[in-house]
């Protein structure tokens, strides 16, 4: 990654393509959940990449490049939301789904067809609270630690843990409801 980063700083097209390909889809997913529509999410990701790449000379490598990038994606998303005066994104804005969920059938996900699986995934992503989606996306596909997520979002570590816990519960609830439907 460091080699690509150095080349990207020098304006190497191949290295820039590599960096963009590595992060653009996850960055887009995070922004999409926060801002709510594809056009804005794409603008947010584009702006974040441009900000990162124009100021990359100041990057001190004290943290990972991706941590820096996702933090800017998150900040840009919030800025976009503020501009549009959209719904609040604070931790208190939880949608209140009860945590006493039905115990999960561990094989639930394995038993369904590919078509159903996609439907389930779409529903799950849609129903997750934006902050839960944010921390789970950063933790799993983003492979970020709790510390890094805290640094990216500005949430405390315990808040990150709570959000992850709630997010998982919401996901299991959706899977179980899907299975019993």
């Amino acid at each position, binding site marked *: 990654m460091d080699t690509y980063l150095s080349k990207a700083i020098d304006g190497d*097209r191949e290295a*820039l*393509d590599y960096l*963009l*390909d590595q992060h*653009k*889809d*996850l960055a*887009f*997913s995070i922004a*999409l959940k926060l801002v709510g529509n*594809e056009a804005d999410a*794409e603008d947010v*990701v*584009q702006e974040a*990449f*441009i*900000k*990162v*790449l*124009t*100021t990359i000379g*100041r*990057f*001190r490598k*004290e*943290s990972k490049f991706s941590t*820096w990038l996702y*933090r*800017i994606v998150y*900040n840009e998303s919030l800025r976009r939301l503020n501009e549009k005066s959209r719904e609040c994104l604070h931790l208190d804005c939880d949608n209140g789904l009860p945590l006493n969920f039905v115990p*999960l059938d*561990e094989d639930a*996900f394995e038993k369904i067809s590919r078509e159903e*699986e*996609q439907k*389930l*995934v*779409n529903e*799950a*992503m849609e129903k997750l609270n934006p902050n839960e989606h944010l921390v*789970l*996306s950063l*933790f*799993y*596909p983003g492979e970020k630690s709790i510390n890094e997520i805290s*640094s990216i979002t500005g949430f405390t570590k315990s808040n990150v843990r709570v959000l992850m816990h709630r*997010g*998982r519960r919401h*996901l*299991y609830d959706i*899977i179980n409801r899907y299975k019993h439907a």
Partner: protein
Amino acid sequence: MKASEDKLTKKLMQKGVRKIPSENFNGRVIHQLEQRRKEKGLKPAGSQSLLVVLASVLLILSGIVVYLHGASGESLSFIQDPAGVMQSLFVVLSVIFVYAIYTLLAEFLESRGGWNGSHHTP
């Protein structure tokens, strides 16, 4: 948390990553990036410095005039200033000078300041 639950969440979240719809997203970003870099390159680098120098010269000149005016206790022979125009000019130029110094300093600090890895974003 059970390992199976963790695995399930991971799988679900990985499958939930949406592909960016634009096919030419990379091209667009790189094009924008080049545009911004060009704009930055075209921006007169010394514009703020020039403003400071200009304001400084005018400030010094008006300062001298005001000083001489005050020291002599009467209007200068080459500048009639009954309404205190020179004094007003001196105040205005001081404000411009302070503003120019402020913007120059801000620009300098911004160019020197690095990201500390946790809080500052560009």
